[in-house]
């Protein structure tokens, strides 16, 4: 009897693991989750954007007959990309990129919304990713927020002459995170019932973090890889799609340095601008998590390692410095020595020809 129970338990665990591998399907909201009024609301929000996307599509295709086939093919590419499973580190599962950051960069945010709508519709009907009733909500999160965020982040960084790889990375990263943020809002508002919005929103955000945080980084890396490949192999394509201007050169190192300096300056200015009573502003830990816990009768305890007491912080700083110094010394050749010259493969490696 014990072995039967154990087998059932193991089978249930396996089922859970098996199913959980498919759990994180980007940010689609499944069919039926949203009540009718919320589903209708998100449709009402999405429709003007889709209409504007179609207007932009028709306008551009009047000048270029190949634009509609291109957009259709891009929709197919985005669909395939968003179906490809990529392993998510630390979460031990697979997930799927959104792809709308990429399409936002390539065809502009308005047309990208149309692409997202097509991809979402096909996924809803034939793959049960998302749904018909939740199509409006998914269009708003992935199509509108994902496309606009990806596009504007890319444009902004390119305007300050940022390296195209970094621009692509940031665009993909923020497009993904914007999508997950919007989905959290849509879910929390749709399923909260009579409960209040913020606690549920916080719980959903926290539930998303283990997968969506690394997934955003992955999507950023994928977007960067894609734009770099296009930039190197087919810059004419990027010019035709108005992503870069003809003859535009990427500022490689300078852009990164400029960004770092800008961030440091911004950080210094902002920190000096924080008013004295900012310490009284509590973060999400106190405002949401501890508050919810207190309501449930679970007061927060003292931290296990209290950094504010004694010299704990200094001690950790010492350890970090020692580790960093050891690592630098161990790899000093890679850091400081000149690179070795490559072998002359033709001279040294070629076998003698048979006579």
């Amino acid at each position, binding site marked *: 009897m014990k072995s039967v129970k154990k087998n059932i338990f193991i089978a249930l665990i396996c089922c859970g693991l098996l199913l959980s591998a498919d759990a994180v399907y980007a940010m689609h909201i499944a069919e039926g989750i949203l009540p009718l009024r919320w589903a209708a609301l998100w449709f009402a929000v999405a429709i003007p954007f889709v209409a504007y996307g179609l207007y932009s599509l028709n306008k551009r295709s009047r000048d270029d007959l190949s634009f*509609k086939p291109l957009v*259709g093919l891009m*929709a197919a590419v985005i669909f395939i990309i968003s179906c490809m499973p990529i392993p998510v580190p630390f979460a031990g599962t697979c997930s799927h990129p959104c792809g709308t950051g990429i399409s936002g960069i390539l065809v502009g945010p308005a047309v990208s919304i149309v692409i997202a709508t097509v991809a979402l519709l096909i996924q809803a009907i034939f793959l*049960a990713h998302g749904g018909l009733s939740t199509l409006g909500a998914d269009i708003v999160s992935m199509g509108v927020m994902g496309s606009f965020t990806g596009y504007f982040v890319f444009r902004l960084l390119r305007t300050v002459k940022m390296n195209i790889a970094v621009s692509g990375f940031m665009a993909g990263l923020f497009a993904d995170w914007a999508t997950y943020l919007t989905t959290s809002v849509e879910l929390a508002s749709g399923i909260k019932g009579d409960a209040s919005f913020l606690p549920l929103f916080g719980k959903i955000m926290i539930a998303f973090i283990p997968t969506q945080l690394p997934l955003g980084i992955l999507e950023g890396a994928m977007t960067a890889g894609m734009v770099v490949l296009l930039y190197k192999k087919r810059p004419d394509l990027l010019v035709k799609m108005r992503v870069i201007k003809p003859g535009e050169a990427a500022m490689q190192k300078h852009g990164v340095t400029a960004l770092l300096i800008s961030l440091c300056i911004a950080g210094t200015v902002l920190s000096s601008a924080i008013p004295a009573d900012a310490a009284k502003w509590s973060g999400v830990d106190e405002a949401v998590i501890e508050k919810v816990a207190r309501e449930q009768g679970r007061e927060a305890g003292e931290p296990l390692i209290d950094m504010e007491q004694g010299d704990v912080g200094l001690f950790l700083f010492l350890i970090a410095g020692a580790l960093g110094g050891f690592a630098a010394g161990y790899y000093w050749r890679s850091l400081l020595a000149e690179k070795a010259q490559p072998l002359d493969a033709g001279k040294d490696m070629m076998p003698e020809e048979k006579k």
Partner: protein
Amino acid sequence: MILSDYIHNGNHWLSRLDARVKIISAIVLLVMVLTYEGISFPVFLFLCGVGLCVDMKVHPRALFIRYAEPFFIVAVLLVLKIFCTGKTPLFSFELAGMSVTGFREGLLEGVRLGCRIMGAVTIVAVLGFSTPFNQFMAGLSWMKIPRGFIEISLFAYRYIFMLFEDAMVIYSAQKNRLGYSTIKRGFNSFGILAGALVIKAFDQSQKTTVAMTQRGYDGIMPNLEHKPFKPSEIGGVLSLIIVMGILWKIW
């Protein structure tokens, strides 16, 4: 990746129905499910839908794949609702030194939400299994969905299969050359794959445009003509809506 064309059973009576009739029925039933407060109506739809899928000889694996994700989402939502919503404790237990309480209201809310999800998923599943994409798009064009959207969707659907094969070829070639042997290489390879697909899409679009142009394409696809409705189909959908409406009301 399973799309309906691969499992569509053209001989079934549901498949032979006009796509417009099926779309209208699906929309009405979805609205009913989303506005229903209890569990009996969506559960009834779920059972009818699964029965129809079995009758259409949909492969059990295809059915499992279709329902796997929604089932998981229902389970997660049920857990969220039981332990996060409600006031009346139903049960509680100790877990790693913590007291975890499940609430009655949360359980009822979770079950209701879960049934709603399963009912809605089933409606769309039956529509997807019984309607090829082209017919679905033809139905949407009759409903005055903008022509541009229909054109893009048809292009996309046509080329998904071709580009998917290309993607698999590139992916296999990368794998054979250790392109996914480490995480860093994997991300790099995946970015290259995405870029290669975009290049392929762009080149294909140019060639497709040339081919279409020499067959008279001037930027607007020709209008699809719709066959007139059969009286039996109109009668059928009206009867379905009335019967379902009565059940929705009385249950």
